[in-house]
């Protein structure tokens, strides 16, 4: 493969525009969908920006997700991969360990189970909207709407008291902030785990009708494992959907024609959610995997031991798969996007996230038909330096 431009040194994060991945990634994709990239520790690995290639890698179990094999695509967090993995944190495990944990949980996240939560999610959404009305404009939509809805839902599902949210939201914010020091990250993990271990002990004594109690009573996992599983679900369950709700609303507010479709046409909502997921690709760094053996992908020979970092954002806008992918078009067929990943690690919580978004966006836009930004769009603070992309705050009026 010829290299017209010098290889990238680490994965780019700085964006030219709020809703588009860094232009550099699109340029690289158009040049070569699989190309060399130098990692933060000097490792000569790969950058994957093409749709077909990213999908093929995610579906291929010859690529591992184990942290001790990974090189870090960004200067931050390299050392974290060397820490021993928290037991039960199956996002970072390969089969057969991964399979064991995933199988214990998938029954709780089926399409049917998630549908049964609809009435309760409606209720939670309406009560947040009532509170916004009571408190009056202006409001920070992240604080008043985007964060509380998924936090409440995952707390109720897991059986984590919502009153404790300040504690876990603070720790979780440290974890996803790429600029947090190693000491702070380590302390936040320990703090969250000791909180969750306490909760596990409580559920063992007084089991309730929630997922954590069910797992405790199932008796297949140790307290350590239960802590790791709960940690993963708690963080993945609220940081992600919260950022989709915040950034998605911001995107709609700057595209009034698209916003009107989501507000006025109930039949368009399901697809609009897929398009927002595709267009915004909030998992903006990676996933990163490491080849366990030599694998050829898109004409490139990836050697055993080499890391590959995907850009889901660039893949989701690959013109070979989504025509005019740089435009937000809530009526385009958007299924097949990679925003929830692909392969055996594809998001466990995706059917929950879909239902939350399908309910929350139209409810917000119908309650406040005059919803608008309270500051110029360029002043909305963006989460470029967080593991999950989105907005830090979204000041709105109605």
């Amino acid at each position, binding site marked *: 493969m010829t290299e017209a431009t010098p290889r990238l040194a680490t994965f780019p994060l700085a964006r030219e525009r709020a809703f588009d991945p860094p232009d550099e990634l699109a340029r690289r994709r158009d040049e070569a969908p699989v190309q060399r990239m130098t990692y933060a520790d000097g490792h000569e690995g790969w950058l994957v920006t093409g749709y077909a290639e990213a999908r093929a890698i995610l*579906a291929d179990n010859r690529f591992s997700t184990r942290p001790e094999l990974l090189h870090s695509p960004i200067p931050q967090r390299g050392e974290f991969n060397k820490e021993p993995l928290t037991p039960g944190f199956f996002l970072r495990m390969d089969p057969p360990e991964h399979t064991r944990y995933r199988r214990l949980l998938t029954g709780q996240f089926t399409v049917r189970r998630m549908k049964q939560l609809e009435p309760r999610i409606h209720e939670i959404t309406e009560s947040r909207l009532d509170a916004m009305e009571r408190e009056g404009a202006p409001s920070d939509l992240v604080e008043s709407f985007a964060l509380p809805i998924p936090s409440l839902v995952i707390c109720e599902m897991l059986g984590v008291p919502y009153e404790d949210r300040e504690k876990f939201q603070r720790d979780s914010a440290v974890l996803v902030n790429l600029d947090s020091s190693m000491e702070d990250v380590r302390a936040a993990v320990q703090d969250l785990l000791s909180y969750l271990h306490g909760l596990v002990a409580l559920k063992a004594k007084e089991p309730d009708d929630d997922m954590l109690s069910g797992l405790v009573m199932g008796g297949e996992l140790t307290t350590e494992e239960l802590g790791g599983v709960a940690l993963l679900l708690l963080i993945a369950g609220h940081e992600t959907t919260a950022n989709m709700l915040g950034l998605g609303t911001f995107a709609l507010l700057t595209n009034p024609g698209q916003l009107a479709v989501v507000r006025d046409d109930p039949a368009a909502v399901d697809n609009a959610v897929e398009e927002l997921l595709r267009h915004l690709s909030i998992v903006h760094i990676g996933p990163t995997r490491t080849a366990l053996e030599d694998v050829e992908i898109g004409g490139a020979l990836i050697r055993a031991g080499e890391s590959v970092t995907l850009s889901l954002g660039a893949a989701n806008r690959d013109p070979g798969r989504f025509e005019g992918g740089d435009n937000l078009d809530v009526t385009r067929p958007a299924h097949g996007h990679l925003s929830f990943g692909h392969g055996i690690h594809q998001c466990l919580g995706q059917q929950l996230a879909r239902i939350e978004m399908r309910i929350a966006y139209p409810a917000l836009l119908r309650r406040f038909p005059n919803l608008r930004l309270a500051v110029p769009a360029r002043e909305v603070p963006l989460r470029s330096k967080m593991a999950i992309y989105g907005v830090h705050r979204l000041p709105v009026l109605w």
Partner: protein
Amino acid sequence: MKIKADAGRCVGAGMCALTLPQVFDQSEDDGTVVVLDAEPPAALGPAVNRAVQLCPSGALSVEE
């Protein structure tokens, strides 16, 4: 058209049940795929193919 599902590969992501609930369901127990109608009417062909495409684990296939 005959649908084959390999529950051993399935990771319970639910893309099949989301795409075509008349044909695919998930077990209450471990969330793996349950095929409700292994030989659906030809009119559902495109939707079945889409579900097969969307399945993240390669658990689904179709025989003509």
